[in-house]
Every structure is written in C-alpha cells, then in structure tokens.
C-alpha cells in the first residue's frame, strides 16, 4: 500500500506532489475538527455528571459543533481544491508529455494496435488518474493519518487504552499490507486467467463464420463456454480468500472496540480513571476504527492506481530518436543509401544494402512479401534510424536534418489512409496550411476528387468521420493524394495498393497518382506489372538484400527472380475462373 502511494507520488510532478502533500497535511487538521465533536459531548457529559449543567453548557456544545462544521467545510474546500488541481494538472501534464514523446518515436514504430493503446491511455487512463486514482490515494493517506491523530490524542486521556488502539491499528495495517501483497501476487494469476478467457473469446468471435460454416456448434473448437466458466470459478475462489481476510480484519476491529470499552469500565471501577474519561473512552472506542475502515475500503483500488501509473509509464517508454537537427534545404534530391543494416527486434531485416536514387527518376522496389521493401522506403524517409551505414539526401545525412525540414522533401501515399475528423477542405489543406480555397479545389481536381466532393451535401465543408460523410476506400485514397499534391514535395513515396478497387475507381486513382508524380522523384513499392516496366531503376529486394538491379529490359535478360516474377504475374493476369464454361 505504501509502495503504491510512493509510486503515485513519484509519478507526479514536483509542484503537484507538494500540493498533494499540503492537502494531506490539511486533512490532519480536518481530522481534528471532526474530532471536536467529542469535546462537545465531553463538555455536556462533564456538566451532567458534575451536576453543573446549565444553558451555557448547551451553548458551548452547540458552538463547538458549529465551529467544527464550518472549519471542516472551509478546510475540506481547500483540500479538494489542492487535490483537484494537483490531479488534473498531473493528468494534463502527462497527456502533454505523452504527446511530446510521440514526436520522437520512430514513425515505423507505430501500428494501429499500439496507437489505439496510446489513445486509450491518454484519454481514459489519464482521466481516471486525475479522478479515481488521486482521490483514492488521498483517502488512504487521510484515513491513516486521521486514525493516527485520534489514537495519539487518546494518549492524552489514557495511555493504557490508547496503547490497545495503537496495537490494533498496527496489526490492521500489517494485515492490510499482507492482503495487498497477496492481491498483487494473485493479480498475475488473475490476468493470466482473464487473458486465456479473452483469447478464447476472441478466437471464437473471429472464427464465428467458420464455426457456423463448418457446423462446429456444440463441440465448439474454442471451448469458449468452458473458459468462461472456469474464469468465473477462478474469480469466485480468489474473492473468497479476500473475504476471509476481510472477515478477520473486521473482527479485529470490533473486538478491539469491546476490549477498550471493558478496560474503560474496569479502570473506572478500580478507580484508576475518572468517570468522564471513562465514558469518553467508550464513545471513542466505537469511533476510532471508522477511519481505518476507510483505508480498508479503498484498499481494493490500489491495484487500479498502480495500473494507471504503469500504463502511463509504458506509453512514455517507447523508444525515441533524435529529431533536432539543422534546418537544411538540400541542393539536390539525390538519395543515397550506403551499407545499411537494420534490425527490428532480433530479426535482421536489411543486410548491407547500398544504392542511389537520382533526382526525378522513378525507382521501383519489387520482391516477395517480407523481403524488406517497405522497410527500405521507411529508412529513406527516416521512419527509423539505420543500425549501420547511412542514408543521405542531397549529400547530407538524414540524421543531420531537423525532422520537419527533412519531411518537407517527402510526400507519401500510404496504403492505409488516415483522414482527420475535419472538413474535406481542411484535410486537403493539411498539405499546405496557407493554401487558398482555390488551391485546395485545384489539388482536388488533379486528384479526381472534385466530382465526388461536389456531390456531398456540404461539398468541401463536409466533415469526414464519425457522424460525417463516409467515403469509400478509393475516395479516401484520392483525398490523401490531393493532400500530397498540395504539399508539392519533390520526392514521392508510394505504396501501391494491392487490394483491388473497383475498375472505375481504379482508373481515377491512377489518374490521381499520375498528377501527383509528374516531374518528381518517385519511389514505389510496386505490385503491378505495368508500373514496374517504366521504372528507370528496378531494385529486386529479397531477404534484406538487393537480389537484382537494373531496368526492366536488363532484368528480363537474366534468369532471375524478376523474370519469374513477371512470368507469374502475366499468367495471373490472364487467368479466368474455369477455363471452359460448364
């Protein structure tokens, strides 16, 4: 428990940590003010027992209680304010830290799964951090300190009874700590059990078509029912253990209360304690463990707090690369790759590759999937940093450029198109923020978007995305091309779509790409026969190396991968389902 709290405070910024600490400090005062109600009762009881009760006594008691309420209000306001500020500041600072961090993460590192995770951390996790987690940490700290304060003020009345309270508190905290340790050990087993259920469920859902297609109804291959059932059993079993521990904690608490009562009475009877003190102690003994219970109640959430902190730290631990270079405008657009090695994880993907791409030429990468084509184009635009060797643009190493000044020279057409949840106009303008409406329309026309955009209810002002227009894959692709045309970068990197779009769309797509690539340096991952044929340079990439290099004519004269690739492709292109009509 203490470890979790420490972890949480370590995670916070300095200023926020101070605010949190101040709020805990104030909580102690608050505990005093809450406890002021006991003196109020004390005053009255004393008066009654000493037979000196008067209207004044009642006034005194009421004034004490009202003062306690007002002070309590004022101080809890301060506490809430500090706590909310610190909580929301922490989450907003961490959100920005994550965003800042993402700027330095190699672009190649992103995939949709990882990004989804980061999104959820920056939104949901941070929100519960500022709300639930900080409140919970405060409650636990406050509960412990309040109990301590009450116990120690009991020492003023009677050290003997206070000692019992102190011992109980220590045992309570030790057992609680033990339970948390146990829970975090179980957490792994719980996660494992849950993961196994999730895996089964996902397999079941993903394979639902097959399960139905092949009649796997009853004896479902995924055992999904069994896994759900055993997870339920596991959860129940785990919970039962905690219930038993909680049971003993509760007993401890209550029995300690009874013991303290008995002691108070006995001490009074044997004359070692005044009557008033004795009655006070009895009342106290019913109250002091309330704050402890509060600690216990929020205990279950320590795992959730740790989880929040761990997740945020995970998002901040993605590897980074240095992006602050110089603002450089290259003299020419010649790209040179020299003796480049690159590994992803433990797998070597690029093995000592060197080549040169001249300005305004067209280079095609071909080769089997997994051979390294995509990685090569990514290394050229510094989506990753090379492990060995160098990549240079216009004679300067790409690592010497500031990232933004390097990116000015490239435009990309990715296979997966991301459009912002904004108007079509702004999406296209993203390529050149100061572009006029006319320029946007011009680019859209070149990319064959204008016609379908005009058919949308609000034309260029139509918002894309949730609640906005849904566009077909081909249309989205063309908008991304318009965006690239807008940017007007000298080097175009193009990942040719493999999935077939319908013929009409395809023709327009081709026209759009042609408009984009006119007079540029073109680097493409090519899947189509005709695309490759006109390239100035074809690099056949296989197993991380250049297997063959040359123009179409040159390569066709060799008996190599390229030639067989072309033969295969021609055969595939003329294929018909069923040669002879049945």
């Amino acid at each position, binding site marked *: 428990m203490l470890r979790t709290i420490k972890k949480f405070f370590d995670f916070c910024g300095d200023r926020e940590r101070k605010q949190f600490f101040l709020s805990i400090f104030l909580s102690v005062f608050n505990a005093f003010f809450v406890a002021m109600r006991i003196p*109020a009762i004390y005053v009255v009881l004393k008066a009654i027992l000493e037979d000196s009760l008067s209207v004044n006594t009642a006034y005194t008691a009421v004034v004490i*209680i009202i003062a306690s309420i007002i002070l309590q209000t004022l101080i809890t306001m301060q506490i*809430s304010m500090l706590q909310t500020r610190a909580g929301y500041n922490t989450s907003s600072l961490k959100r920005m830290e994550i*965003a800042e961090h993402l700027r330095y993460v190699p672009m190649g590192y992103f995939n949709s799964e990882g990004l989804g995770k980061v999104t959820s951390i920056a939104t949901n996790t941070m929100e519960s951090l500022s709300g639930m987690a900080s409140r919970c940490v405060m409650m636990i700290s406050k509960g412990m300190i309040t109990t301590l304060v009450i116990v120690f003020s009991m020492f003023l009345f009677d050290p003997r009874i206070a000692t019992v309270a102190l011992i109980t508190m220590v045992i309570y905290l030790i057992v609680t700590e033990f339970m948390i340790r146990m829970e975090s050990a179980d957490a792994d087993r719980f996660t494992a059990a849950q993961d196994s259920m999730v895996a089964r*469920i996902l397999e079941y859902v993903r394979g639902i078509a097959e399960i139905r297609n092949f009649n796997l109804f009853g004896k479902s291959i995924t055992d999904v029912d069994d896994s759900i059932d055993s997870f339920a059993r596991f959860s129940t079993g785990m919970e039962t253990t905690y219930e038993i521990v909680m049971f003993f904690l509760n007993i401890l608490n209550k029995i300690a209360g009874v013991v303290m009562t008995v002691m108070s009475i006995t001490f009074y009877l044997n004359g070692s304690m005044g009557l008033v003190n004795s009655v006070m102690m009895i009342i106290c003994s019913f109250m002091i463990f309330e704050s402890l219970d509060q600690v216990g109640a929020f205990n279950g959430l320590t795992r959730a707090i740790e989880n929040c902190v761990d997740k945020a730290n995970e998002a901040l631990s993605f590897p980074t690369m240095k*992006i602050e270079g110089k603002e450089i405008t290259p003299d020419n657009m010649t790209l040179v790759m020299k003796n480049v090695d690159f590994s992803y994880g433990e797998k070597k993907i690029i093995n000592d590759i060197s080549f040169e791409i001249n300005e305004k030429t067209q280079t095609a990468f071909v080769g089997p999937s997994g051979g390294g084509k995509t990685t090569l184009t990514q290394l050229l635009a510094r989506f990753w940093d090379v492990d060995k060797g160098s990549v240079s643009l216009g004679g300067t190493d790409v690592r010497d450029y500031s990232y*933004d000044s390097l990116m000015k020279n490239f435009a990309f057409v990715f296979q997966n198109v991301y459009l912002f949840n904004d108007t079509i106009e702004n999406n296209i303008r993203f390529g050149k923020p100061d572009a006029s409406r006319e320029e946007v329309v011009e680019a859209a026309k070149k990319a064959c978007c204008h016609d379908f955009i005009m058919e949308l209810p609000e034309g260029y002002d139509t918002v894309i995305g949730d609640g906005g227009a849904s566009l077909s894959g081909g249309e989205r692709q063309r908008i991304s091309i318009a965006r690239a045309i807008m940017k007007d970068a000298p080097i175009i990197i193009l990942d040719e779509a493999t999935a077939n779009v319908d013929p009409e769309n395809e023709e327009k797509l081709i026209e759009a790409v042609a408009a984009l690539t006119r007079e540029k340096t073109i680097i493409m991952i090519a899947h189509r026969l005709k695309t490759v044929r006109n390239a100035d340079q074809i690099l056949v990439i296989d197993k991380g190396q250049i297997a063959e290099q040359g123009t179409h004519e040159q390569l066709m004269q060799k008996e190599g991968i390229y030639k067989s690739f072309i033969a295969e492709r021609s055969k595939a292109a003329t294929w018909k*389902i069923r040669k002879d009509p049945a």
Partner: protein
Amino acid sequence: MNNRKEEQRKGNWFGTMLSYAKGSGGKLSLSVIFSMISLSTGLVPFYCVYKVLDLYMAGNLDGSGVMQWSVIAAVMYLVKVTCFGISTGISHYVAFNVLEGMRLKVADLFLRAPLGEVYAHSIGEIKGIIVDKIEDIEPPLAHVVPEGAGHILLPVISFVALAMLDIRMALAALAAFPIGLLFMVLTFVISGKNMTKYQEANAHMSSVIVEYVEGIEVIKAFGKSGTSYEKFAGSIKNYRDFVIEWMESTWFTMKMAFAFMPATLLGMVPVSAYLVSKGSITVSQMALGVMLAMSMVVSMAKLEIFSNGLRQMEYTVNEIQKLFDMKLLKEPGKEGKPDGYTIEMKNVHFTYNPEEGEVLHGIDLVLKEGSFTALVGPSGGGKSTVAKLIARFWDITEGSIKIGGIDIRDMKITSLANLVSFVTQDNFLFSCSIMENIRLGNPKATDEEVKAAARAACCEEFIMKLPDGYDTSAGEAGKRLSGGERQRIAIARMMLKNAPIVILDEATAFTDPENETKIQESIANLTKGKTLLVIAHRLSTIRSADNIVLLNDGRIEASGDQNKLLAGSPLYNRMWQAHIGARNWAAGKVKEA
C-alpha cells in the same frame, strides 16, 4: 413497439441482469437479508453500553455486570461480522454467476444471430463488452446491492430506536439535515448547468487526443509535429482549466451539504442535555442516543457512494443490453430436403435498417445447379449483399430465396451451412495444428484426405517448410504465413467440406500478389463442378461465366454472357474498358503497352 420494449427494459434492467444466472434473485435477497441482520446486530452493542451505564448510574455496577454485557456485545459483533461475511460471500457468488451467464449469453447469441449483425460490431467493441464492460458490473453488484440495502435500513432502524427512546431526541438528530439538503440542492443547481458543458469539453479533448495519436504518422509525414502539438497542448490545458473552474464553483455548497447533512449531533447534544437536565431522560439514555445518532452518520455518508455505484451499474447493463437485443435467426422445427442445388431468388427486397432505406429492390435470379454466375457492378450496387443473403448472413425483408426448392429460412442453420461454402479474403485459422484446421472441413477425414486437400489447394509446399509440418500450430505459424497462404489453407478446408454451392466474395482480389497463380489454381480445384457464384472486380477473371449479372443501385441492370453484355450494356462496356485501361497503366507516364 420498440420504444415500449426499451421502456420496459429500462424499468427492469436489474431483473433482466439477474435473469442471466438462474436463482440469482433468491440468493441476492438472502445476501440482502444477511446484510441487514449484520447492520442491525451492530446496534446491539450500543444497547449493552447503555445497560452498563444504567447499572452504574443505579450504583449496581460490578465486574460480573460488565463482563456479562461485554460478552454480549462481543458476541453480537461476531454475529455482525459473520453475517456480513456471509452476505458478501453470497453476493460475490451471485455476481460472478451473473457475469458468467451474460458472457455465455453473448457467445450463444453469436451462434444464432445473423452473421451480418455480428459483423456490424468490431472485434474491439465485442471484446470490450464481453470482457471489460461485463467485468465492470461485478464490484457494484457484489457490494452495492447488499451493503446499500443495509445502509438504507440502518438509519431507519437507528431513527426508530431513537424515537422509542425519546421522540424529541430523534427529531433533534435530524435538525441539521434540512440545512444540508438545501446546500445539496444548491450544489445540483450550480453544477447541473455545467454538466453538459463538462461532457462536451471532455468529448472535445478526447477527440483531439484521438486525432493527434491516430494521425501521428500523417502529422509527422507532413512535418507538422510542432504546430499540431501546440494545438493539442492548448486543448488539454483548456480542459483542465474548465474542469477545475467547474468543480470550484460547487465546492462551497457541496462541502456545506456534506458537513451539515450528517451533523446529527448538532441538534442532538443540546436537546438531549436539556432533556437530561429536566430529568425526562437519564444520562445513560443520552449516551445511547448519541451513539445511535453517530451510527446514522456513517450510513448516510455511504449511501451517496452506493447511489453512484447503482447508477453506473444501470448504465453499463443498459449498454450491454443493446448487444443482447440483436435480432436472431429463426430456425424451423422440421425442415425440408432440398431437391438439387439450384438457387432461386424471387423478388428479393432487403433493408439493413429502415433509416438507410432499401438496398435491394426486387432481385429475381436463378443459379442453376453446377452453373457459374458472376455478380459485377459499381461498388455499393449490392453485389456482396446478394451473395451474403444466400448464405443467410441476414434474413431478407421480402421475397424468397430457395435452394433446391426449399426456402432457406425453412432449413436448419446447420443444414444451410453444409450446403454453402463462402470464401472471402478474411480467413481465420484456429489456434490448433494446421492439420486440425484443415480437418475442420470434415471431422471424419483421415490424415491422408487432409493432405490430399492441402495438395489440391497448393498448400503442401509451404506447410512442409514449417517447423513441424502439418502439426505446426496455426497460432504459432500464423505470423509466418502470408495472407495468400492462409487463404489457401482456408480453401483446403473448404475442399474437405465439399459443399455443393461455392460463393467467392472478392476472394480473387488477393492480398499477396506473389502467390496469385497458386491461389488461382486452388480456387479452380475448389469450384470444379459446383454451383458457383463469384463477385469479382477484375472482369477478366469472370469473362467465361455462364451468366454475368450486372447489379446497379440494388437492381439487376443486365445479365447474360460476356459477349451479350458487351454488346447490350453501356455500363458493362465502360467497366470493361476501365478494367482494360487500368491494366495498362504506369505511374509517372501514361503509355499504351
């Protein structure tokens, strides 16, 4: 009618939730009863203290009196804690059973719902519901219900006990309550106006985050990481400032409410002191009154937490319930036996949902047994829908689809599944061995038959390269297999199944071009002699079809063989030219080859 159903469900979400596990209602009531016993017995020790005080006042207190009442108090506490343990034990048991019931229900639902409905939900969404959302119900269900019920009851019992002691004391205990309530109402008035603003601010910030993170690739590629970051940071700060300001606006009233509402002692102390001085109650009665009043406070404070828990649970259950309202396919009790495998669609109309309007407007189409039919047309024309309706991904809105003279709605889902093989680009392999994955097509197939199918689907070559050949787990091999290879395994599976009707839904638009000819060969083997329906973008692949059906805007615009369509349909002609044109394209330069 839907509305009424919705209303009903909202009213009784709790009962619906419990119905997922048999006997939950009864067990949960038991848990509530134990919780109430637990909290009520918790009051007895106060009485014991009172008795002891009373004895003292009367001057009769001795060691044995103290012991007697202390033991009773201790025993009562033991009962209290035990009952509480039993109560939460039962409620956790119920909660986990309800969770299990809900999960099993989803699993079962997916077997019986139209596949189209299932696919309308993303995997992430489904996982979110089955795993996280359902899990979210556990803590409130296990704790809120029994403990909440107890905490509602306890202040009432305390109040009644106080009233029995002295009605004036009871009323005095509640004196501060209206003041607290007033502040509470003020708090709601102040914060209520801003609640929607808060939700908007939160949604806005979330959308900025989503855009920044999901779009980071584009942002960086366009060299905008600096400016986009500024925009991002701005909206994060705005959100924080807004929330803090909003919360601060309600702090004063809220804290006052929380200070006054449970301030039972405020009225209690002076009034009881007065009563003691007048001699209408004894000092020990006053002490008992103070203890009872203080015990009310704890429960009142906890009720707030519990009402939040309840609201949250209702919200989650209703969210999940939306999934449970999925339409199911009806299955006939008795089914007819199809005579042959000719597919006949008559006046088929189809609507996904009423808001979007009709998608198919009366399709009449006959696919003769053993014939080859191709569906072509612009995207959005309804090709895929027609194919999926034959496999009963959805039920049609009007008209009929018959196979061998039997309406597909009069067949069992399993029987229809046996007749139709549906091949798509998405091919799922289960995490068992490759051998078992193929054998799914026909569980009775011998190893030899499986291997023969694998050979016919051009799989054997790459399977033999895997570490354990056919015994390699598909999950493990999954990362190594390309899309085309997975597709061929799926085709091998279909071959073993040997269904008389084969539907290829864009299965010829391959994911990896290098494997194209192999996939083509395996498809040729799969479709030999079957009733075949193909949806293809590449018109050249279907030019030898017996019947090419051109679908446009949910209607059949033309049909016939390639020559007939080229001669008779301007749309088909355009598509064909576009297809031929596209094949001759090259980037940078447009050249005729």
